[in-house]
């Protein structure tokens, strides 16, 4: 629209408006993080106290969700075997964007006590981008909560960009996945 005397020229670019909207969205997203709990290993035992009256995750607006489509955070709690990793990648790809990954325990960081196992992978962030690692074997509940608050801070600082990274470096992630797993999408006699 041509500007007249009474309507001053609006010089906010589209990128700028998008950024504004994104920041508003970030406010909602960080205050309402829904978890998909992929209880892969022993660290899952730290989640009940985090959810119930001891630490009460819900006061941060967090809660468990049933399916990946609904969830924001993919919570990997503990070691990941090769079989689980396939399902994890599949689940991660099903989540709606923006999506974040929080990994608990030392196993997803460097393999932990399973660092020399043929069945357990060593570093999760080689396959899917991880936004927050919570170290410890197992991390206590305060640390888990701290991890979530860290994620909220990252979202606020716009540094929780794992899902964008996954888009940008998809080839690299894909290559790592294939190196470890062969083809991610497996066929078996029960589901064909």
């Amino acid at each position, binding site marked *: 629209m041509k500007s007249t005397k009474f309507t001053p020229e609006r010089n906010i670019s589209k990128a700028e408006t998008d950024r504004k909207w994104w920041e508003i969205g970030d406010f*909602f*997203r960080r205050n*309402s993080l829904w978890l998909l709990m992929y209880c892969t290993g022993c660290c899952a035992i730290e989640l009940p106290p985090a959810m119930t009256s001891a630490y*009460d995750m819900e*006061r941060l607006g967090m809660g468990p969700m*049933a399916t990946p*489509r609904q969830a924001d955070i993919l919570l990997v709690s503990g070691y990941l075997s090769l079989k689980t990793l396939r399902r994890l990648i599949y689940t991660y790809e099903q989540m*709606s964007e923006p999506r974040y990954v929080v990994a608990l325990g030392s196993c997803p960081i460097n393999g932990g006590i399973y660092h020399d196992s043929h069945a357990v992978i060593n570093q999760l962030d080689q396959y899917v981008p991880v936004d927050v690692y919570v170290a410890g074997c197992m991390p206590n509940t305060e640390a888990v909560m701290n991890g979530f608050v860290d994620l909220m801070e990252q979202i606020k600082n716009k540094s929780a960009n794992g899902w964008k990274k996954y888009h940008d470096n998809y080839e690299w992630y894909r290559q790592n996945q294939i190196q470890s797993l062969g083809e991610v999408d497996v066929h078996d006699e029960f589901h064909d």
Partner: protein
Amino acid sequence: MSITILNFLIGLGIAFFGFVLQTSIAGLNRKIVGRLQKRVGPRWYQEFLDIFKLLSKRATSHGWIFDFGVIMALGGIIATAMFMPLTSTFNAFGTYDNFFIFVYLLAVGMLGMAMSASGSGNPWASIGVMRALTTMLAYEVPFMIIILTIIKIAGSSLTGIQLYQQAAGNNWFLIALPLGGIVGFISLMGMLGKKPFETYIAPAEIASGPMVEYGGKQLGMLFIMHEITVFIEVSLFVHLFLGGATNIFIFILKYFLVYTLANLISNVNGRFKIDQVVTFFYKWPLILAIVQAFIAIYLGWVI
């Protein structure tokens, strides 16, 4: 009366008001439940945050019926809410607030959602829809028998029913038809999908049933739809059994009490199996409803 665009805007305002009211009260109820379980609980506006977050996300779609069903669901529910009177003097479409509109226009929304869920191609969604429909078959019949009694006494316009209860010498139908009040409340629990009758959501069992494939904006729209549906159902109870309201504050108060009571009851209950839901509703609530209808219609004992 003549219908102008103003009526539509008022109706839309009522739907929006219902959404805001129910979402706030649902948030408050989450806080209350949190306190009940010795937790801090979320902020009272948490439900708003959840919904707007969902709207801000990028969703996945399984084809046109998946989207169309969601639009039809939300549209049907908004349309239903537009007919809802808030008080005995304020509603959008005058005397056209016929009770049957609420029951059957609500069904359009439900049908839209069921269609969309089945269209996602996920078996859990179909199972959830099956359970939702079966639950509907269970709670609707006792409820409708009580409604028959009320309509027989006071006509089928919701405003008329409110005015009848507010007239001097008449009681609220909760008192005038005590058994009916009980049946109505149990059916309300079924309608709201609260705990003993929560079979069709069952997150741990069938992965939240019809909602299994939704994320992002579709889920957000379904949340909006759900909030408005709850608004319609609880308002129906308020208007039918609690004498409606003469002003908006009384309405909000009654609304809050009914919803909180339902929520508290739901929080100390487990979940029925689906066939238990059916047998439950076709046993005591139906018998009570028939007894109440018989007493009220044939014997004329309306206290």
